[in-house]
């Protein structure tokens, strides 16, 4: 029997950052901009948070965590501006600029580790995030709050209605007087903030330092969750939970008797295989925002 109860805290710990990043990716894509750069944004967020925390820990204990997370968020936001500028103002191919950011983010992160810490990872910090009474990290609750917030914004606020129209039919949005470019910029920056935040949370809860394998594809898993969840908050939450569980099991299954018969990589592969299967199953219908990936050009009939 898999003792889910005891595994639950670590499962949720892994789900939370994936969920937050996926929600960021969803917002960007709902506005019409593909964001492959989630992996890189999480990476730069994780690096920044770990670095700031390690450096400030001796000086400002207690506060350094918070400041670390905040700076991770900011780093993600700033980086995403590059992608935003390329894809929205320069009509760049969104996949190319996203891929470039992934390469650039990890490069800069490890480079700076070398400079600051003289090794290819940050120094280990003493205290990461701590769990609360229920044994859960605060990051789990925060993820829930973000989930509710995103849902509320997209479906209950006028700005959300406008944002979603930019991804479905930017010509219709423009005809209604909406500033499509501005909204898309905001959406991409939000995904950067959330991605950076997710990376920050991840490194502060799951490990003791940032290295180039900290994120290890979880940014792409978050992207897959957006697809699998059909670009809806509820669906994305479900997908992130499923995939996060899979990732968590991949790590902890060595401890579970009953799962020993499976190859160790089984749970690692599950999210990716599931995503491909869904894409094939739903290939007839397209749940993605209709105008996704197309640069917005004024005056098209």
């Amino acid at each position, binding site marked *: 029997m898999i003792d889910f109860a005891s595994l639950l805290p670590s499962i949720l710990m892994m789900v939370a950052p994936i969920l937050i990043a996926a929600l960021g990716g969803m917002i960007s894509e709902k506005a019409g901009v593909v964001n*492959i750069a989630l992996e890189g944004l999480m990476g730069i967020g994780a690096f920044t948070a770990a670095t700031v925390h390690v450096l400030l820990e001796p000086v400002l204990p207690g506060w350094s965590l918070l400041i670390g997370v905040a700076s991770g968020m900011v780093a993600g936001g700033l980086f995403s501006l*590059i992608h935003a500028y*390329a*894809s929205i*103002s*320069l*009509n*760049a*191919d969104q*996949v*190319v*600029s996203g*891929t*470039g*950011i*992934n*390469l*650039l*983010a*990890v*490069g*800069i992160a*490890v*480079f*700076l*580790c*070398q*400079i600051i810490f003289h090794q*290819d990872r940050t120094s280990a910090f003493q205290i990461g995030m701590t769990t609360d009474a229920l044994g859960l990290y605060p990051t789990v609750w925060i993820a829930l709050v973000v989930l509710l917030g995103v849902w509320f914004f997209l479906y209950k606020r006028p700005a959300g209605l406008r944002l979603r129209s930019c991804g479905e039919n930017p010509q219709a949005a423009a005809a209604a007087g909406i500033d499509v470019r501005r909204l898309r910029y905001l959406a991409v920056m939000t995904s950067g903030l959330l991605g950076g935040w997710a990376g920050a949370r991840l490194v502060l809860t799951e490990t003791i330092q940032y290295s180039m*394998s900290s994120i*290890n*594809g979880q940014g*792409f898993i978050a*992207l*897959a969750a957006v*697809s699998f969840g059909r670009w809806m908050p509820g669906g994305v939450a479900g997908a992130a939970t499923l995939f996060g569980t899979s990732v968590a099991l991949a790590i902890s299954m060595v401890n579970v008797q009953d799962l020993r018969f499976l*190859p*160790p*990589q*089984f749970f*690692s*592969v599950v999210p*990716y*295989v599931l*995503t*491909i299967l869904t*894409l*094939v199953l739903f*290939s007839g219908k397209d749940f993605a925002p209709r105008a996704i990936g197309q*640069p917005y050009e004024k005056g098209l009939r």
Partner: protein
Amino acid sequence: MPDKALPPKEKFDLIDLFTRSNGAVSLLVIALGFVFGSLFILLVGRDPVNMFSALLQVVTGWDSSRGVWNARYIGEWFVASMPLVLCGLSMAFAARTGLFNIGAEGQYIAGLTAAQFVALLFPPIPGLHWLVCVLAGLLAGAAWGGIAGWLKAKYTVSEVVTTIMLNYIALYVSQWLTHAFAPGANTYRTKAYPATSLLANPWIEDLTNGSRLGNGLWFMLLSVLVFWFIIDRTRLGFSLRATGFNKEAARASGIKVQSAITTSMVISGAFAGLAGVIVSMGSFSYGRVLPGMENYGFNGIAVALVGNVTAIGSLLAGLLFGMLNSAQPLMQSREIPKEITWIIFGLVVVFISFRNGFKLLADWRAKQRTKS
């Protein structure tokens, strides 16, 4: 209705040059990459000259600190370049058909894994053994690329997403298969390869003063030729290029666009698979349980884009980036963190994505002119 009079001949115009010439853009992007990379180095208080001197050393073999020529640097430069060139060819080939193959990483892994198994399990017949390894790698990479191609052709599933997913699937499946089934495997390696399976070439090894360069070199050069040949000289290449430039016109001309897409991904995967073979059978003497992505595939994207998705471009860009990679240990010893190469790769890709900006600039200017 008379045609509007043509505007007077423009004097030499930078924006026009960059809009029209892809080669110029590539050079500009590389230059910018190095400039920003140097700025970065300066920003953290190190001396960019050290990076350039390290680069010079791997290309010429001249070791300034000891005052001797050492051909090994040149050999290792090529060793680092080969997989980059091949992964660049992989992405470039698909791109010519209008496809975005980000899956070279997974196709590389597939080729690598197949080669490892054949190396360890196939009878050690001299002359034949390594050839079968190469073939196995080609086929494995081709098959892995073909999956994405088939999914796109049959189900119109975006190859961008599927190839990313397949990258990770390849990695994990490779880890599992190698660890569980390869002879003598532990958590990170297998038993040593029989000598007959290696791509080592004693003559080249001698020439390059003991570098790891071997027969892989011929295969890489052959691949560049094959790429050029298929694209430029065969009717398959004709239909692939037509599909890549204008899918609708291709279709209206009777070209079977679906099968063009699948074929393209298969060949594209084969190139990357070959890269996997060359790395595993050329640079290593035992099989490995891959600890993670090797990034040749991802860096191959930069190679293809800078090389303007051509055969010769991929070769040159691959050599350029191989130069950066092989200089890493030297840079490290000169206080330049080796990750500067990743930064330069990333910058190059981002800058290339700005390319469309030139067109926008040109359009805006044309509009200004008509208004006046």
